Structure formats: C-alpha cells, structure tokens
C-alpha cells in the first residue's frame, strides 16, 4: 500500500498542485489582499448561523472537488500503467484512493476545519453536521467516478458533429493557441482571473463618481489587474516552453515575435477593455481610459519579459510581481502620467524580451 500511495501521490497529488499553483496562489492573493483575519472570522461566523450562506460555502468546496476529481480521472486516463491498481483488493484500492482524495482536498479541508472550529465553539449543531457531512461526501463520492474510470478504461471519445465541422472549416491562428489552451486545460484559473479582474475594475469605476477621485483610481485597478494575471502569464511561459517549443525553430524575427505576444495578451485583456469602456466615468476622457488598459497590458508584457530572464518557479515569480505592485503604487500616487507608465513597462518588456527570448528554457525545479 505504501508503494501504491507513493506512486499515486507523485503522479496525481504533486502534479495537481504543480498545475494549479497559479490558481491557488491567486485565491490566496485575493483572500489575503482584500480581507483581514477579523473579516474572515466574521464571514465564517455569519455562515454558521445562516444555512443558506453555508450551503454557498459547501457549493464552492464542491466545485473545487469536481475540479480535483476531474484531474485525478484525467491522470488515470492518460497513464495506463496506473490501471494496474485494478489488480489490488477493493478495500486496499479504495483506501489508497481515499487518501489521495483527501490530499487533493487539503485546501478545502483546512478551510472547512476553520469554519468547523468556529461552529463547535458557537455550538451550532446544524452547521457542524452540515460541515462534517459535506466533508464526508466530498472525500468519498468522487471515488465512485474514479473507480468507474478504473473499471472502464479507454472510453470511446467521439467528437461532437459541431466540433468536427468547426475543426474541418477553421484553422486556429497562432495568437489563439494559448487562449485555447487556457479554455482546455486551465478553465478555472481563466474564469477566476477574468472574473476577479473585471469585478475589481467595475467596482473601482463605480466608486469613482462617489468622491473626488482622479485617473489614479482606475490606474490602481490596472495595476492589480496586472497582478491578477501573473499566474496566467506564467502559464503562457510554461505552455510555450513545454508544449510549443517548436515555435523557436520557426523563422520569425524577434520584433515580430514580440508583436505576436502583445497581440496574445491584448486578446487576453479584451474583457477588461470592454469593462473600462462601458463603465467609463463621464469626466475621464477616452484617451485616459484607454491609457489605463494599455498600462495593464504593458504590465502583462513586463511580467512575461521578466520570466524570460531566468527560469523560476511560480512561487519565486510572485514576489517579483509583488514588488512591481509596490513600485507601481508609488509611481501612480506620485501622479506619473498613465501613458508614461505604460511606456516604461513596455520599454522594459521589450528590452528583456529582445535580450533574453532565446536564452529562456524550461528546467524542472
């Protein structure tokens, strides 16, 4: 059983956390930056006294569980040697899978444990029962799916007729490769990043008319939008160096490559552009609000340029993003013009890109 657990831990648990490091760091960033400890406690205390709110919590934990279980099933489908697990006795096999499921759900279990502690202290029996029951369900029911996958390997995956027509008629341009990759492999990261970033900008733009703010408020929004996208930029870096290395053999000049990355990131930031234009306060002129978007775009370019300078893991890249946010905050507060800030970031990005593009390579850390 120990050997089985080691193999499953390395192929499923470690791979899951490696692939979702960006998503988890984004969640930590969002939770840590907007709410203090007292607010977290207040929210959880409210939840244990309001079953509807607690059900919302459980729903979110369920979404995470679906995401993690789907990953486990995909690993079993992609690695046929793992099907040897079928040869083990049912109890031992289910025991191993349960341990793996618990390890995958560690963030949920940790947070649920925090809410459960508050519930026990407050003697709220219904909430305690709901939390314990949901944890039992979340750690056991996905095993049915995994067990089914183990017993029914290599399902006949047919493409839908609509997909066949689309694949036959259209060819994906290079600029959309990465966006398709995100939809295909990192939909949760994409959804959370875009959702968080757009909600933040909408909130700031609605806040703008309520007091005597100036362009610095949306500029700060752009700065945080850039930080929100750090995990996605890292995914772009990883995607190109691990799955699309061939792009480096293509006869394309560095300047054209730079423009292509600018296009990819501009497409990535299209929802933010729409949000900015639709919610633009009346006293901010169009060039200023477009400047805010260009500033956000230039930050993404700068993040990518920085990644090319030296291979780092995501957790070593995030402190760089943090220092950029701090530096950007002061530059914005000192009223540097928004187009000037964008120009500085784009110049830095171009400098790093031209110097380091061919020097960048992926290495297992």
């Amino acid at each position, binding site marked *: 059983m120990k050997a089985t657990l080691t193999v499953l831990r390395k192929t499923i648990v470690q791979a899951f956390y490696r692939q979702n490091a960006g998503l988890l760091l984004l969640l930590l960033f969002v939770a840590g930056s907007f709410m203090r400890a007292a607010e977290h406690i207040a929210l959880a205390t409210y939840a244990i006294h309001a079953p509807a709110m607690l059900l919302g919590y459980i729903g979110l934990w369920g979404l995470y569980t679906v995401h993690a279980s789907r990953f486990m099933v995909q690993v079993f489908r992609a690695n046929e040697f793992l099907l040897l697990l079928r040869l083990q006795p049912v109890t031992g096999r289910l025991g191993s899978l349960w341990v793996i499921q618990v390890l995958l759900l560690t963030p949920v279990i940790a947070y649920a444990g925090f809410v459960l502690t508050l519930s026990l202290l407050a003697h709220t029996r219904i909430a305690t029962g709901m939390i314990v029951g949901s944890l039992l369900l979340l750690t056991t029911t996905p095993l049915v799916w995994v067990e089914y996958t183990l017993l029914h390997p290599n399902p006949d*995956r047919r493409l839908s007729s609509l997909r066949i027509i689309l694949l036959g008629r259209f060819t994906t341009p290079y600029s959309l490769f990465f966006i398709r990759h995100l939809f295909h492999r990192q939909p949760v990261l994409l959804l959370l990043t875009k959702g968080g970033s757009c909600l933040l900008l909408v909130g700031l733009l609605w806040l703008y008319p309520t007091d005597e703010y100036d362009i610095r408020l949306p500029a700060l929004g752009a700065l945080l939008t850039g930080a929100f996208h750090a995990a996605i930029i890292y995914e772009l870096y990883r995607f190109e160096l691990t799955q699309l*290395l061939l792009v480096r053999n293509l006869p394309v000049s560095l300047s054209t490559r730079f423009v292509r990355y600018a296009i990819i990131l501009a497409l990535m930031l299209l929802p933010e552009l729409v949000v900015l234009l639709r919610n633009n306060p009346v006293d901010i002129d169009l060039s200023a609000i477009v400047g805010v978007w260009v500033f956000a775009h230039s930050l993404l370019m700068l993040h990518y340029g920085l990644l090319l300078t030296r291979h780092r893991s995501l957790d070593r890249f995030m402190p760089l993003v943090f220092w950029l946010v701090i530096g950007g905050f002061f530059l914005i507060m000192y009223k540097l013009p928004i187009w000037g800030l964008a120009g500085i970031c784009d110049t830095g990005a171009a400098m790093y890109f031209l110097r380091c593009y061919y020097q960048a390579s992926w290495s297992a850390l």
Partner: protein
Amino acid sequence: MSRERILPAFLCEFLNPSMPAILTLQNLTKSYSGRLVLSVPAVDIAPGIHWLKGQNGFGKTTLFKVIAGLLPYAGTVLLDGQFDLRRHPVAYRLRVNYGEAEPVYPEFLTGWELIHWVATAKQAPQHQVDALIDRFAVADFLKTPVGTYSSGMLKKVSIIMAFLGNPRLILLDEPLITLDQQATHLVAELIQTGREQGISFLLSSHQDFSLSGLPVESVWQVAQQTLTLVPHTV
C-alpha cells in the same frame, strides 16, 4: 546569379568540392543548471547524410535542440559557412528543420492546424504540404485533435513538418521509432530524395542506418559530453 541558384545543390557540391561545411560548431557548450552536458571545441560537418549515435542520456537530443535553435547555448553554430544561429536567427531557422524523437504538441490542436502553422512560417508551397500529407496517408486523421493520435501518427505529423519549406539541413531525432514498416520506408525514401535535392540530414537512431540503404556519409558519436567522428565504411 550564383552557381548554387541555377544548379541543384548536389551538382554544386560535385563541381566544387571545397564547398563550406553544411554545419560548423565552434566552442559549443551546453549546460543544464550549471552541469555541463555538451562541449564541442570545433566540428565541421560536410553536406550529406550523417548518423549520430550515442547512448541514452548522452546528449543527442540536446545537441539537436541546440542546432535547431530551441535551447540556449554558448559558442557558435554556423550553417553553410554564412548563417550564424545567433546573428541570423530568421535566415538560419528558415533553412534548418527539426523532427523530434517524441513530439509533444498541445493536445487540442489538430494535425492540420500544426502543419498549416509551420508550413506558413517555413514558406512551404501548398502543393508540398498536400504531397507530404498524401504520401503519409494521414489526411483522414488530420482534422482531429492530436490528443487522439497514436504515437505513430504524432511521429508522422512531426516528420511532415520537418520536411516543409526549403531547408538546407534537416535534423531527425530517432526518425524510425514508432513508425510502421511502410512509413519507415517512406521516410528513408524522402531522405534519399531530399539528399538528391541538396538537403543534408543529421539523423539520430539506435538502429543501423546502413541497413536502410541510405548513403550515410559519416557517423558521429555523442559520448563523454562531446561529439566525435567515428571511423565508418560506406
């Protein structure tokens, strides 16, 4: 107009034996995280078909990836005595193609999308693309995502892409593995035809290329972190 423009390359080589090496490596070093993997002081590889041998993990694929411009390196990589990988990145890459040993592509893309993308970048004419797809008989699968392909199908896509455009040098890393017998013969045929058109080949394989009937001009060994010429009887 130069002689090379009006005569096929193999005739140029025949008429002018002092032609520059197709590939020159000088003071080439490649390290991973400070660990030296390759160190090639000076090597000239003449035009022709060359077989690169070496045990697993000795750096054959790394050398191919360096020559293809996929990995950073120190030193000089020169094609045809004039195109430096660092100083002429576009011209060099237009003339050097690479077929991977174990191709990895985004699984959601179709084979057609990948071939179309590479063909456009390598300036390959449509009739060349169609002819290669036709010869490998992969048209029926090309419009499905590569995630559904067998390893042999992936290899065929990789080899098709390696022959696109108008290369001077094609690097084929383990071109015969995972291919069926028919495809293996086809690859040997394409290499032979390519050679007649003046394309040079660097092939790595654990199988003996002399058995395939290909006119292998030299055999190189990657061992002890360097590249050396092995005595070879054609």
